């Protein structure tokens, strides 16, 4: 899948200068806890925009505020020129949201579900009828048109969830962790779907994820979010250049007799930025400078370490995250899951499907 370049949203070039979403100082506080801290960014019309960060970083909350499901504590945002607080009904006409929650009624059939939501969107009956058929066709659910959704498998429900959000042909589609919990095959399908949607319908897509892979493959621009703030915002390659541009190298080394002593001595090398341990014998070292390579090897050998394999890697977004925030996505995920008491119903809870 590495064939997809950063320019997955092919329509970016033509409308590069029109912002469809503008966010100014958006903040969301729950009792004594700030989930989203004064963030500002713009999303260009027709691009695929990603919010990347660990669990609890505030990505979903941002999405909920933008889709008018939650009220911001401070700050403002406009979508297509409409303010999300003052003009919320207008905003909702042109957005769609797909989150982990399955928005469908189990005892109604696929058609009835789509009909219900379609009518709430004010879509004229004839248009709605044909659109429902098209959408079901799109995700191969046509056979199940008159079956109760409660009988569907998880995969089918996920597909239903997506097409429900497309009923009103939204200009902006919000996707909250689209590949969470999916098997690799389904993840690929979803990614293809997103790209196709963006390319053919020029739908602007804003997605949140904690998977670097998704962000890298799909997004034109990525905002790295940590503890409620945006710590970096740029295209994927520009972000990676943050590391390599500063003459930084990412080394993956396998030391068969790795000890704490060896790790400590590597860390103490001046040109080494971070050392993380992937497993018993594998280290991932970010270091800068021309001599980085040699310094590291010498240090390890001086301590009697036996180097089995060594790779000079291209930096990944994981490395970028580490470089900027000083901790790994994994660590941050354990660190802070906001307490139940802080979240009112409606804010996302556990992220397990």
């Amino acid at each position: 899948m590495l064939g997809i370049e950063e320019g997955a949203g092919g329509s970016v070039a033509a409308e590069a200068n029109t912002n469809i979403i503008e966010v100014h100082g958006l903040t969301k506080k729950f009792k004594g806890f700030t989930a989203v801290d004064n963030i500002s960014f713009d999303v260009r019309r027709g691009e695929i925009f990603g919010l990347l960060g660990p669990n609890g970083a505030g990505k979903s909350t941002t999405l909920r505020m933008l889709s008018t499901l939650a009220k911001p504590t401070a700050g403002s945002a406009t979508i297509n020129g409409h303010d999300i607080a003052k003009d919320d009904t207008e905003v909702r006409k042109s957005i769609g949201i797909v989150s982990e929650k399955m928005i469908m009624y189990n005892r109604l059939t696929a058609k009835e579900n789509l009909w219900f939501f379609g009518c709430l969107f004010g879509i004229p009956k004839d248009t709605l009828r044909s659109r429902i058929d098209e959408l079901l066709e799109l995700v191969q659910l046509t056979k199940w048109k008159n079956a109760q959704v409660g009988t569907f498998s998880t995969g089918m429900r996920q597909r239903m969830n997506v097409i429900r959000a497309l009923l009103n042909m939204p200009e902006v589609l919000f996707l909250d962790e689209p590949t969470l919990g999916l098997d690799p095959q389904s993840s690929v399908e979803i990614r293809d779907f997103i790209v196709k949607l963006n390319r053919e319908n020029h739908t602007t897509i804003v997605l949140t994820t904690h998977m670097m892979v998704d962000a890298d493959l799909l997004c034109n621009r990525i905002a790295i979010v940590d503890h409620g703030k945006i710590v970096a915002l740029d295209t994927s390659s520009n972000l990676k250049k943050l590391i390599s541009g500063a003459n930084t190298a990412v080394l993956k080394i396998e030391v068969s007799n790795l000890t704490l002593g060896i790790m400590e001595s590597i860390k103490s090398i001046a040109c080494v930025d971070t050392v993380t341990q992937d497993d018993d014998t594998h280290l991932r070292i970010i270091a800068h400078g021309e001599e980085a390579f040699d310094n590291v090897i010498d240090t390890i050998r001086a301590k009697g370490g036996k180097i089995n394999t060594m790779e000079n890697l291209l930096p990944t977004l994981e490395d970028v995250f580490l470089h900027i925030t000083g901790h790994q996505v994994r660590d941050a995920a354990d660190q802070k899951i906001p307490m139940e008491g802080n979240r009112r119903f409606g804010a996302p809870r556990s992220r397990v499907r």
Partner: protein
Amino acid sequence: MGATSLLSHSLRIARKDLNELFRNRLGLVLLVVMPLFMMVMVGFIYPSSGSTVSDLPIAMVNEDSGYGNSTIVSQTFIQGLQQINDQTGMMVLSNASSVSNLQSLIQQGSLDGGIIIPSNFSSCIMCGQQGTIIVITDQSNPQISGTIQTALTEVFDQMGTMLAQQHVQELNSSVNANNSLAIVQPYKVQTQGVVAGNTNYFDFIAPGILALTVMMSVMTGLPSAISMERESGTMDGMMVAPINRLSVILGKALGQTARGLIQGLILLVLAIGIFGVVIHGSIFLVLGLLLLGVFSFVGLGIVITSFTKDQETASMLMMTLMFPMMFLSGVFFPIQQMPWYMQDISKALPLTYAADALRKVMVLGAGVSDITTQLTVLIVFGVVMIAIAVPVFRREMTR
């Protein structure tokens, strides 16, 4: 968003709710069975006809020491009692050997009560004094105890009157059987009801149960419906649609109202069909009252939902409110029987007024003008509750 779209969206949401309800087979069955069950239980527990006091196991102890050498006075009394009992079948009379035997039999539960003729019975009567009859009852069962006391007192009074009549006739030979009664018991009491026919406890309860079921179904149904949608995420689906969010509450309320009314109708049909309850008033007024009752509770239901995080808490809160209301609103027991502080509490509960108004219409055939107080209370309560509910709901939904 105009009023028409508000209404059409609300109706769509209501229809969706009802669709879901009707496809839930178990839910449908319970919808019908629950009121059926309640009616049947109450209907058959409380006897339909006036006083069916019969076959009470009662024993007698005769401790009379007699007058002179004869206990004929007490024997006459006992015979008289047995004659009456043979006619009415009120008791299953037996003899106990002593007072302590009697007491232990009552304690064991083999007897519901006992009659003791004290030792001075004959001597009192022969000396021109009142003869005392002691009635012992099972204190742990106040209802039976009361029934026995009333029934026996009636019987003894009757017997006493007959004896008095005899004495009067003996005193003055110009008195005959007819006017001796007028001498002994100058006043006679005749009771009449406001409407024709006899009423019973069931007629009293039926309106109350009707009001209770309908209101309960709305008050528990609404929070459940809202909480469930919140938890499953479908509430987001409605919130993200470009509709007036008011239509969500309205739609849900309409759906639950329909559900409550259906249950109410089933109950009504059962009450009339199986238990012979007669509606003396206008049936439209009855339905209108039920609708009003629902309306006044909808707001309360919404407020409670908005404050509770999940369905479980909402249900528990509902139950807590429901329970005192059931017992304090005069549904099962008239509020006049309760101590004054309880009565004050019940005056603050809307269910009291609904049950009261419904009862007046169904049993007494009252018209609109007779129940204006109750109507006003219900309307005001409903409006106030909804006025509170709407902004609270809105705020809580978009936190």
